[in-house]
């Protein structure tokens, strides 16, 4: 049976955990479009899900080559959203972690960290300039541009929300770099 759940995540690690919890309950994640998750029935705990941020865009031949390699190893690409890709593997086939050494984990976290950082900066710059536009033209005759002001505030808020996953990823990278001094 198909089941649709609407849910918005900023933190992909919470999202991954949620997908795995759903699979444990017998709901296998099948498809994604913005904030919309489609599930179908499965045996409880049949699949393990992992989310990855690709190095290149989804349609890039490099990415396609990577995806077909992953399929060979039993990691099935289930859905994607821009560069975010959702993999699943049958739990019966054993452990499923995309990356097993510190160096490749750092590389993955770095990609994610920069993505959050760039979007965060864009939101704040766009937000502040809209607030600025919104506050101009208040000369007694015109009452400014309230729409710009509201959009600006929303953008700045999104930017602030994105700071948290950015900072958490930054700390993860920092911790891994320390570990790397001692082991691989």
């Amino acid at each position: 049976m198909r089941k649709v759940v609407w849910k918005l995540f900023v933190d992909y690690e919470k999202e991954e955990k949620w997908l795995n919890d759903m699979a444990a309950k017998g709901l296998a994640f099948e498809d994604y479009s913005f904030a919309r998750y489609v599930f179908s029935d499965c045996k409880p705990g049949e699949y393990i899900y992992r989310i990855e941020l690709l190095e290149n865009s989804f349609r890039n031949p490099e990415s396609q080559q990577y995806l077909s390699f992953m399929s060979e190893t039993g990691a099935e690409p289930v859905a994607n959203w821009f560069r975010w890709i959702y993999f699943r593997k049958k739990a019966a086939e054993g452990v499923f972690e995309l990356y097993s050494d510190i160096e490749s984990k750092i590389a993955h976290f770095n990609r994610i960290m920069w993505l959050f950082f760039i979007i965060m900066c864009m939101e704040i710059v766009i937000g502040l300039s809209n607030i600025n536009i919104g506050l101009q033209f208040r000369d007694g005759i015109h009452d400014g541009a309230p729409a710009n002001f509201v959009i600006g505030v929303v953008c700045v808020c999104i930017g602030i929300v994105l700071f948290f996953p950015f900072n958490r990823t930054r700390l993860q990278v920092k911790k891994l770099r320390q570990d790397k001094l001692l082991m691989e």
Partner: protein
Amino acid sequence: MPESIERGALTEAVFYILLSLHEPMHGYAIMQNIERLTGGRVALGPGTLYGAINALVQKRWIEALSAEKDSRKKEYVITELGRSVFDGELGRLKELIRNGERTRLEMKGTKKS
């Protein structure tokens, strides 16, 4: 030969990939082989393996076998250069073990006396 001067320790993943590729294998077989050899201790992540294979091909320590074109699974095998790197690493590891065990023996000896 600038390549042969490299002295760095190989990562565990690279060591076991080179070891596995003494006979031709595709990606998934490498993962399974390593898991079997280490009794499940080393479960190579497919993302890590993919990155390592690409880097090894670039360094020419391994090469892709293009014989089976219709097969989607690409097989890889170690090159001569890869073998010499692997042998160098084996020598380095033997030295580690020799030194480690000698120190252990010496410590035991001093405790008894």
